[in-house]
């Protein structure tokens, strides 16, 4: 093997974390969850107001699976230059397992007052994060089914109907490969609740009905696109008549024009929301100055005024993780978009259905793996 690299530290990394950084820092933000669409405005706002804390900020995006490898490599080299990571559950959990993240809680609990006002399901999501992550945005996600009324008048509304419909309309039902797709993943995790599986948290042993269902459903599925966008496009152009969606994926693509405005959604009987959240984490090895700056930034982001920006254009609908952030306080652009493309029925659906936290990372990887081998890979033999 190679000798351990020298690397160079970017300042003190272990000492006391001051309230304010000694001097303004450059902050590199890595987003592996698409979270910046919601929070970049908040960060920019903070930087504009506090140039003495953060002098410059750079943003970069990467697919979630790469996150841990990247951070680990930087930590191995003893030169971590990513100051803030915005991630979903998957990246967060992978990092926790490898011990990549700094423990923010309870040490800095008092600096992050906003955490006390989390919505209830957001608080549940926060529990998943242990002591490492701070929930910055939250949404109940799905699973939902989406369709165009022009092509499909009455959509199936329960699992059996879905199967029957797919059988009757082969190749017209689509969902994307779960490992690459939020809605696909939510659908996968939501099915055990809908089908009443033995243990919805144990994909290896407790998901018999789900796997059987997916396998059967798979016979009528033409192929599994490698991204949600593709399923949206297919819905829009008529290749697919029924796809899997989430609240955000329902609203935002219609705002963007990827999907016609007339598209509708329907829940599946007996579904539980499989919630989702984005977290902010700090990799171990960042300097105390950066830590201080990021903590201040996070506190700022959890204020209701800033949280209101999370409405965005419905991308993560609703978005805010803290209570009592009304649409009215959101930027005008958000208000307009959601007024035009949002759905009043969501409030009732969110209120009226139970919420569940998603699978932990290990189980999720196991589920993906099994899905890849048995459901996705199964297409090889048929095709």
């Amino acid at each position, binding site marked *: *093997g190679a000798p351990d690299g020298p690397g160079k530290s970017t300042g003190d990394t272990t000492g006391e974390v001051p309230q304010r950084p000694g001097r303004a820092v450059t902050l590199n933000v890595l987003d592996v969850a698409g979270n910046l669409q919601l929070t970049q405005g908040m960060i920019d706002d903070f930087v504009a107001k506090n140039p003495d804390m953060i002098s410059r900020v750079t943003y970069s995006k990467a697919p979630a699976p*790469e996150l841990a*490898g990247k951070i680990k490599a930087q930590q191995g080299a003893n030169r971590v230059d990513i100051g803030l990571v915005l991630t979903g559950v998957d990246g967060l959990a992978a990092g926790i397992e490898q011990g990549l993240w700094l423990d923010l809680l309870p040490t800095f609990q008092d600096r992050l007052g906003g955490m006390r006002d989390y919505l209830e399901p957001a608080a549940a999501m926060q529990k998943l994060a242990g002591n490492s992550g701070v929930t910055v945005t939250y949404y109940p996600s799905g699973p939902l089914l989406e369709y165009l009324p022009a092509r499909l008048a009455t959509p199936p509304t329960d699992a059996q109907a879905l199967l029957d419909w797919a059988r009757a309309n082969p190749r017209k039902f689509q969902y994307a490969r779960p490992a690459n797709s939020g809605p696909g993943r939510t659908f996968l995790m939501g099915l055990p609740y809908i089908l009443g599986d033995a243990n919805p948290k144990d994909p290896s042993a407790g998901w018999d009905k789900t796997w059987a269902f997916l396998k059967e459903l798979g016979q009528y599925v*033409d192929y599994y696109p*490698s991204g949600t966008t*593709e399923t949206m496009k297919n819905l829009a*152009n*008529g*290749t697919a008549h029924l796809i899997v969606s989430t609240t955000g994926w329902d609203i935002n693509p219609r705002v963007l024009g990827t999907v016609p405005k007339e598209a509708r959604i329907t829940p599946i009987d007996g579904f539980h929301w499989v919630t989702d959240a984005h977290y902010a984490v700090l990799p171990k090895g960042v300097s105390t100055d950066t830590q201080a700056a990021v903590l201040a930034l996070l506190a700022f982001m959890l204020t209701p005024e800033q949280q209101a920006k999370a409405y965005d254009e419905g991308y993560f609908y609703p978005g805010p993780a803290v209570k009592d952030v009304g649409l009215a306080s959101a930027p005008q652009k958000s208000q307009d978009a959601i007024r035009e493309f949002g759905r009043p029925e969501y409030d009732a659906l969110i209120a009226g259905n139970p919420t569940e936290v998603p699978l932990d990372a290990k189980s999720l990887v196991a589920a993906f793996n099994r899905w890849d081998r048995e459901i996705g*890979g199964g297409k090889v033999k048929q095709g």
Partner: protein
Amino acid sequence: MSAAGPGRPSAHWRHRLAERGIDRQLILLVPALVFVIALFLYPFFYGLSLSFQPTDGGPFSDYARFFSDAYERGTIWITLRIALPAALLNVLAAVPIAYRMRGRFRGKRLVTTLLVVPITLGTVLTAQGLLNFLGPTGWFNRILLATHLVDEPVRLTHNYWGVFFSLVITGFPFAFLLVLSYLSGIDPTLERAAATLGADWRRRFTRITLPLLMPGLATTFCLTFVLAFSVFPSAVLVGNPAGETRVISLAAYQAAYEQYDYPYASAIAMIMGFVELVVIAVVLAARSRFYTGATGGKG
């Protein structure tokens, strides 16, 4: 380098080395050598040794793991099934076209220039373009539907064919330009000589041009094959990365960056390199059976 040793008194060791072609000028080679050793050979052997230090099990357990798992093992076959036909098609299609275009004619530069364009597209735009163009409601299917050649869109993306087409789009121009340059390396008077000896164009091609082109074709095949074999982004973007286009580089990538199992990833990478080198070795062995000397052209 210091093989001076005792010799005839008149033969200075420098002379003796110079006689064998060793002198100070070789220093110019040093930076490149240092570079290739540090950045290629060392990491390569590091990876090799890493592949024998799996997280658990004996030194070969990662290799055993790969070959005992049909899902993983299958990636070799999947990759070959994509790369071999694509490389073959690229080379074979290039031959008649290059053969037509080897002379000088107006617009030749335009055609060759146009053919270079796909090289600049990059995998991502190609993927994006293929998704748009060959997709179920893309122009291609629309034309087929409009002309009633099919009643239902043909599916050409998110499967084997999507990857195949992306390899053709990026690989064919490359193969064509290479074949063209090999062809123009063959002295045109050879064919004219064959003509005066009574050979019609078919036999001129099969008896003279083709045998002389064969080594070039083999080389071209190897290079296009290398490109096709390491297909990665398009396998994800236009293929079906869970199924029929789960190529071996994807397996290596997932091992490294999704499972963080570097030894296993290294093992897969080594297997990948090995399989590729085997194919190349076979082709080059076949190539050596052809005449490979000068072909008298401007090559």
